[in-house]
């Protein structure tokens, strides 16, 4: 790229005011060809254009009339590429078909997550929330400069010029021009001042809130979408790693004779967490790894089982923990309560199990490190890699590719799998680019799980059946302890352990929420919806138990204590009415049917779900239908909002019905989809999603669909059978 013009002061002022953009104008001769393209395939990068207009770090307009939106967030299925492009297209008044999206490079100065300060990354359902103004301003700035160029060209006032659907027009003189034709001239225009830009009012939106087709549909249905697994570089080797059988185990020695005898195997190297076999292709590397003999040092191996751990958690739960939230005097009120209800809930470790097993491509050249990855945590990974290699952070270049799911896994605070790939490349002195692939078994057994948790709850009702006291105790490992996010631990409480419990929305005068945080060497990490993946279950199931004990309707009881939470009330009412709450369900002979509800806020989005179930005499059951109501502020793309609710419900159902990672003598018992089953087609309920109309700024939708489904199902099973299941995953034999 040839830089021909440097930022001017006014432009800098505008873009800083516009939430931290920095920019330069580039006039590239041509764009780099896609490095990762497989033979005979279109790559991910845009076609070369002679002249391009790059008004800021997020938009590039080519003379071929293509508008390229630079997406700073990972597309892992949640629709960010489409959402970010929609925001730009809206204020640019572009035509949707002319929009292309390209992943941003790792550069926190330009592409930081505005809700995370100086860090670039995707997570916590923040992509739309932090970009809503920034990307619209980026589009508006580009539009302003296009209009200025046309005004100068035609010698007419800018205010008489209109832009619609990618065409710039002057009605009085009947002149029209495309963005592409204006690109070169627009690049020479002054950038707008902040006061020059007025963003559209919601009533004038043409894309936001409408159905802009997904940007990533085509490449994902014709096989051309480039995931990390698809990267092929000249001379690249594929690496598989023999990992330790237990957490805390290290390599004592290894014998590579057998591995090296396998045709295609090129090298065998030790790294900090195992032994890597490098080969010309996956299958040779796999056979090489099978033939490798490693002797492990088990002296520091963790050898407990999850059953023992749970017993210890239960013991811990008998004594008070660190206080996460307190109001009134829960203990005293509980002592005087006319009726007390108690229950305990168990949650297993869970693997993310994204369909694309973890992988990472690394190329080392001198003091430069280039990475290809479904990159969810640019700044953290750059920092960790630069430390490992002893090179400046800006020498770590990251190409962000599509991720075949992640659910939080590709944002590891320790950069675990990324550093593993970098270590392998380093161990061979950068002789060849390395594609490290984890098999499904590696992926399943590497830890970084949603933590095992144990919750106990108590509630006190007064003589009129009012809920007057609530005590909630949680026991589970901290996700952020020992990471760069440790600052989230305040007074012994990791906020991610208690989110959804410490901020229970119900108006209960006396509350006490406390937490025990045991330390174990099983690595844990955020997993789609984080703390809410367990707190929504225990609180919403227990609330139902309390409603039953108070002889109140679960919806009415919730309503009565949510008077100060209008958004909760709105989704609750919408879901209940659309589901026909209170109307009888028709059951086939021999089956029992029931309806259950749950409501939960996570990441600023409030979701209520009503589940309908049918239970057979043997206890097996089917979730027939789920009615979901969501308030996520402005729904930028309603089809994607619905898709995320449908997908979140399916993801939550996998955990409710099937999934658990267990340890036996310290070894992970599961390895692949036969013993860590996921929801299948025939188990997917009919899902109906209703979006609450809103003019509030958008919050996220990637995670909030998950938390309410498991409690809604359990509450429905109770309605159908009178039996209350409290441990996940659910055991159907308990309903027989």
């Amino acid at each position, binding site marked *: 790229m040839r830089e021909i013009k440097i930022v001017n002061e006014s432009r800098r002022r505008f873009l800083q005011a516009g939430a931290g953009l920095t920019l330069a104008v580039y006039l590239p001769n041509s764009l780099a060809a896609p490095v990762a393209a497989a033979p005979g395939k279109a790559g991910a990068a845009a076609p070369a254009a002679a002249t391009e207009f790059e008004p800021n770090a997020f938009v590039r307009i080519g003379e071929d009339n293509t508008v390229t939106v630079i997406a700073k967030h990972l597309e892992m299925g949640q629709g960010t590429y489409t959402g970010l492009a929609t925001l730009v297209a809206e204020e640019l008044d572009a035509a949707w078909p002319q929009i292309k999206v390209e992943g941003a490079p790792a550069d926190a100065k330009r592409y930081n997550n505005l809700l995370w300060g100086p860090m670039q990354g995707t997570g916590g359902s923040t992509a739309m929330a932090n970009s809503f103004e920034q990307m619209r301003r980026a589009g508006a700035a580009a539009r302003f400069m296009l209009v200025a160029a046309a005004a100068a060209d035609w010698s007419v006032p800018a205010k008489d010029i209109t832009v619609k659907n990618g065409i710039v027009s002057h009605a009085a003189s009947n002149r029209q021009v495309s963005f592409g034709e204006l690109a070169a001239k627009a690049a020479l225009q002054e950038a707008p001042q902040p006061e020059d830009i007025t963003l559209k009012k919601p009533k004038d939106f043409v894309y936001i809130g409408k159905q802009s087709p997904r940007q*990533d549909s085509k490449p994902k249905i014709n096989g051309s979408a480039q*995931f990390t697994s698809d990267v092929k570089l000249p001379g690249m080797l594929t690496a598989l790693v023999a990992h330790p059988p237990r957490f805390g185990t290290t390599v004592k020695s290894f014998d590579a004779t057998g591995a090296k005898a396998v045709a295609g195997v090129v090298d065998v190297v030790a790294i900090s967490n195992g032994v890597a076999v490098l080969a010309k*292709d996956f299958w040779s590397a796999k056979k090489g790894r099978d033939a490798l003999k490693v002797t492990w040092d088990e002296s520091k191996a963790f050898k407990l089982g999850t059953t023992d751990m749970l017993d210890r958690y239960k013991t811990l739960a008998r004594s008070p923990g660190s206080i996460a939230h307190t109001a009134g005097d829960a203990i005293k009120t509980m002592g005087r309560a006319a009726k007390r209800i108690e229950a305990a809930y168990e949650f297993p470790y869970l693997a993310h199990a994204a369909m694309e097993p973890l992988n990472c491509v690394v190329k080392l050249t001198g003091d430069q490190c280039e990475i290809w990855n479904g990159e969810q945590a640019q700044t953290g990974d750059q920092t960790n890699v630069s430390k490992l290699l002893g090179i400046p952070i800006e020498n770590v270049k990251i190409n962000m590719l599509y991720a*075949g799911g992640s659910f939080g896994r590709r944002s590891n605070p320790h950069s675990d799998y990324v550093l593993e790939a970098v270590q392998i490349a380093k161990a061979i002195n950068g002789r060849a680019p390395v594609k490290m692939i984890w*098999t499904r078994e590696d992926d399943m057994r590497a830890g970084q799980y949603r933590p095992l948790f144990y919750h106990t709850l108590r509630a006190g009702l007064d003589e009129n059946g009012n809920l007057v006291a609530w005590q909630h105790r949680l026991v589970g490992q901290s996700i952020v302890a020992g990471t760069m996010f440790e600052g989230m631990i305040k007074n012994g409480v990791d906020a991610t352990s208690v989110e959804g419990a410490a901020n229970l929305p119900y108006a209960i005068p006396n509350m006490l929420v406390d937490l025990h945080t045991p330390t174990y060497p099983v690595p844990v990490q955020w997993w789609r919806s984080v703390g809410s993946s367990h707190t929504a279950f225990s609180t919403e199931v227990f609330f139902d138990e309390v409603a039953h004990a108070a002889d109140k309707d679960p919806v009415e009881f919730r309503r009565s204590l949510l008077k100060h939470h209008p958004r909760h009330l709105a989704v609750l009412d919408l879901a209940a009415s659309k589901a026909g709450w209170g109307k009888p369900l028709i059951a086939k002979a021999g089956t029992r049917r029931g309806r259950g509800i749950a409501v939960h806020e996570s990441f600023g989005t409030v979701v209520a779900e009503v589940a309908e179930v049918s239970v057979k005499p043997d206890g097996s059951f089917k979730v027939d239908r789920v009615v979901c109501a969501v308030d996520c502020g402005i729904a930028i793309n309603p089809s994607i909002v619905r898709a995320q609710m449908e997908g*979140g419900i399916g993801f939550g159902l996998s955990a409710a019905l099937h999934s658990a990672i267990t340890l036996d003598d310290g070894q992970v018992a599961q390895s692949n989809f036969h013993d860590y089953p996921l929801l299948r*087609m025939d188990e997917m309920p009919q899902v109906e999603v209703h979006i609450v109309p809103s003019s509030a700024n958008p919050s996220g939708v990637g995670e909030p669909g998950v938390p309410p489904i498991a409690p809604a199902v359990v509450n429905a099973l109770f309605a159908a059978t009178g039996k209350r299941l409290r441990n996940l995953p659910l055991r159907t034999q308990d309903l027989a």
Partner: protein
Amino acid sequence: MIALSINGKKYQVDVAPDTPILWVLRDHLGFTGTKYGCGIALCGACTVHLNGNPVRACVTPVSAVAGQKITTIEGLSSKVGRAVQTAWEKLEVVQCGYCQSGQIMSAVALLSSNKKPSDEDIDSAMAANLCRCATYQRIRAAIHEAAKHLA
């Protein structure tokens, strides 16, 4: 050398005969649309057509398919294939997309042998194709949509 016929073209590959066709496609011939998800026939991400029938490429040794007709997502050009892809796009089925080549190959195989599948037919034909993003509802709708279009 093993002779292969992929998407109507002939190829010669020099690989160990036990190499699953999945890795021949991906690592040696550049057909990366077919994905690896489990390696042991549990997820369907690697589904390709062998003489028109869906097979799991991850457990199919290359030696077993020499000379037979293999179709991958890149070579999907039949009327049914196009109808399925069009329906997938129209109903916005994809999320992360990683499973979708396999889903589409299974759906095309279903519709090629059953013009008007019921929900139960779809359940049984698609039950072995996992989608961690749980796009199942839209997959079902898209199969019905494609069937309607083909009728």
